[in-house]
């Protein structure tokens, strides 16, 4: 009802040729944070995907030399049953990536949609939000333990745990972004033009909140790496002999003083991945704000 007056002094001159999507990617990559984040994440993914094919050692083959230090054949040394640590690190990272890249997109899509349900039905909307509140109230590891006890521990339980931990945050994020969009006049315009509610939600509002969801996605990828590590660390994650970053940190911690590389190498990878995702999230966020 109040009179909104813009003097328009801030309307920056625009170059009308490039599409907004491309400008957005360019804006993310132009910042040092965005570039470093992308290099870290893409670099680790590439090494983990290609690495196991290139190196001669196998991650599961046991050998006669247990707990030896780094050498020409075993770059990071071997573990307590003589398996090559570098090969296990690569495969473990790959397992981690598979788990997080399955879990987080599922939870992203579910969370975002459930967060927007309120637009179609107010009761369902508040029900979802209360559900998210309950899930947010339970610590991630406890949630993971509960899941591992309900279904048997393994890759499946880790994925479910990650979905349960990260989904409420997508849900909250999408609801907040949605509430920010609803007062915009283009939503009222769509309603006046007689567009169905679901169309307004998916065709109009959703594209406008996606950038906030992308930021959340990067943050939750980092969170997922941590959850996997935490669960495997207490033995309720990926089960042996399958390597994973968390499991390696756990078994390596016994030999921390004699063979520090055993547990430190996976720690470095976890830190690298988490830092990469968070830097990327930060750069995405900044690019959103600038738009």
């Amino acid at each position: 009802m109040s009179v909104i007056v813009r003097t328009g002094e801030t309307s920056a001159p625009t170059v009308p040729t490039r599409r907004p999507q491309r400008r957005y990617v360019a804006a993310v990559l132009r910042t040092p944070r965005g570039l470093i984040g992308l290099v870290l994440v893409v670099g680790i993914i590439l090494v983990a995907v290609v690495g196991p094919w290139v190196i001669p050692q196998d991650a599961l083959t046991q050998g006669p030399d247990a707990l030896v230090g780094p050498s020409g054949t075993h770059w990071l040394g071997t573990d307590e049953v003589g398996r090559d640590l570098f090969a296990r690190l690569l495969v473990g990272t790959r397992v981690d990536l598979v788990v997080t890249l399955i879990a987080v997109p599922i939870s992203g899509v579910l969370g975002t949609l459930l967060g927007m349900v309120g637009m179609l039905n107010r009761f369902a909307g508040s029900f979802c939000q209360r559900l998210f509140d309950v899930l947010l109230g339970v610590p991630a590891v406890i949630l993971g333990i509960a899941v591992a006890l309900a279904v048997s521990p393994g890759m499946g339980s880790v994925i479910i745990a990650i979905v349960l931990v990260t989904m409420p945050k997508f849900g909250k994020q999408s609801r907040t972004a949605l509430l920010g969009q609803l007062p915009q006049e283009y939503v009222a315009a769509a309603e006046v033009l007689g567009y169905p509610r679901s169309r307004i939600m998916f065709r109009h509002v959703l594209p406008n909140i996606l950038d906030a969801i992308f930021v959340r996605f990067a943050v939750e990828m980092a969170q997922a790496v941590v959850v996997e590590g935490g669960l495997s660390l207490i033995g309720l994650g990926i089960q042996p002999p399958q390597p994973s970053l968390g499991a390696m940190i756990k078994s390596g911690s016994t030999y921390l003083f004699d063979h520090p590389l055993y547990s430190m190498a996976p720690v470095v990878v976890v830190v690298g991945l988490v830092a990469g995702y968070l830097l990327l999230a930060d750069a995405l966020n900044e690019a959103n704000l600038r738009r």
Partner: protein
Amino acid sequence: MTTDVPVLEIDGLTVDIAIDDDRRVPVIADVALSVGAGEILGIVGESGSGKSMTAMSIMRMLPGAASVRHGSVRYAGRDLLAMSESEMTALRGEEIGMIFQDPLAFLNPLMTVGQQIAEVLVLHGTDRRRARARALELLRLVGVRDPESRIDDYPHQFSGGMRQRVIIAIAVANNPALLIADEPTTALDVTVQAEILQLLTRLRDDLGAGLVLITHDIGIVEEVCDSVAVMYAGRIVEHGRTADVLRQPRHPYTRALMRSTPRLGLADRRRLPAIPGQPPDLARRPAGCAFHPRCPLASEQCTAEEPPLIRLHDAEAHRVACWAAGETEPPAAVEVAAPPPVRETDPSPILEVRDLRVGYQRRSLLRRGGPRDYAVDGVDLHVRRGRALGLVGESGCGKSTLARTVVGLLTPSSGEVRVAGGSWTGGRRERAALRRTVQMVFQDPYSSLNPRQTIGTILTEPLIVHGLHRDDRPGRVEELLGLVGLSTSLLDRYPYQLSGGQRQRVGIARALTLEPELIVADEPVSALDVSVQAQVINLLADLRDKLGLGILFIAHDLSVVRHLCDEVAVMQRGHIVEYADTASVFESPQHPYTRSLLAAAPGARTVKEQL
């Protein structure tokens, strides 16, 4: 009134801004101005003209991407641009005060107004106890009634106009010699605006400070300014004493701006003379005189050479930057309105509103469904086919609530809204038919278009949803663009690539896609530049006559509705207090509120003097 040493002297000021990694464009160029003690200088211009940038350069508060290329800004003989940051900080708030546009954004919601006024005093060396006494004195000075009881109130407890008074109190707290006010009344209602302008004039008299008043409204300049600088595309195009400039404007832009401003003094239903085209994009400033693409007097020289700002012989200190400053305009420029189509004497109503009440539930802690506050309280009105009804009122009067109820976004508490005989309370079929019969044009052309859709998508989507024009949708969209005067080259553009006026035309085209019979326009021009406002008002008038549309036109400003509307309804606190045909409302207003609205409109007094 001017003394010998000017308080503020700007010379050759040029500021540029980075628009890309390696491209900088000037936002203001060669600005030269001076303000004497006790003088009010108005800087008037449209968005992008560089008026706010000029103010920000004086305060040394330019945004990060902008920097001063050359020129000087002297305050009482001292070069502000050469000062260190700490010297500048000492000057701000002490000797130079600034008043901003948005009174709510400027005040800290967690501090009382007394604390906020005292803060600026204490920072500049007053002790705390004296600061409170002075804060009381200041509140009284700016016209806050009963300051003893208001000093410990928080900003949210003040109305918009009162908040602006508090900001003015902060700005003048240390008796500054120079005040800079950037659109100080733009966010306020007309009647409040008149009070604030009076206050500023009185403070100038009391304090003897120089005042730079930045505005887009030439009526305000007329009312309060001693001298005026007209800016266009970053340059001063005309500068002189207000009386000289406004009585005998020499620059074609100044003349056009004055003509296209809706005035109360003009005859009803006359087409507003619009300035063709739109203000230039800074990145693509035309060569030569930046105004030449829109100028009726443009010659070859204008397209090639930038005209210098030169003094005219006949008036002292009246300067103009125009190659054709001596010439008068060809009279043919007056747009002859197409003879109105044969109008039915009493067309049938397309919209009937009867005893309408729209309420908001007052939430109380213990029970729901408590008493209601009615934003619209017992309104009757009707709009006839091919006619326009202007609904005028200040913020909070319920006019937007009424508009949203008419288009079915809000549900009435009681009473009736009938559009072409149908009602929103009817069945599914009836409502679907109504959707196509009534459409809305929104206020804010920035948020009313989905930023992620191209103009083509925005205009095609209603056709897809309603299954219209299956065989030739692109043809229909082209036709719509033609109706609102836009080129088809815009189809692949995104809204952010369009100017405000273009966006509002897209908004109107979108409202027309479903071939409605009634258009509800909620403040469709209040976010637009003056020269573009006239274009949009004329466009609505043309569409009404060509398509026989009924229009419910909502505005906060009486002068805007005069050119378009056949009838006017004045709304106050949810009620319609005056409802008559346009001529009688303007010539013999009956209700005191209508009279106060008319009296408060900027330029009203001077127009009356001239008549």
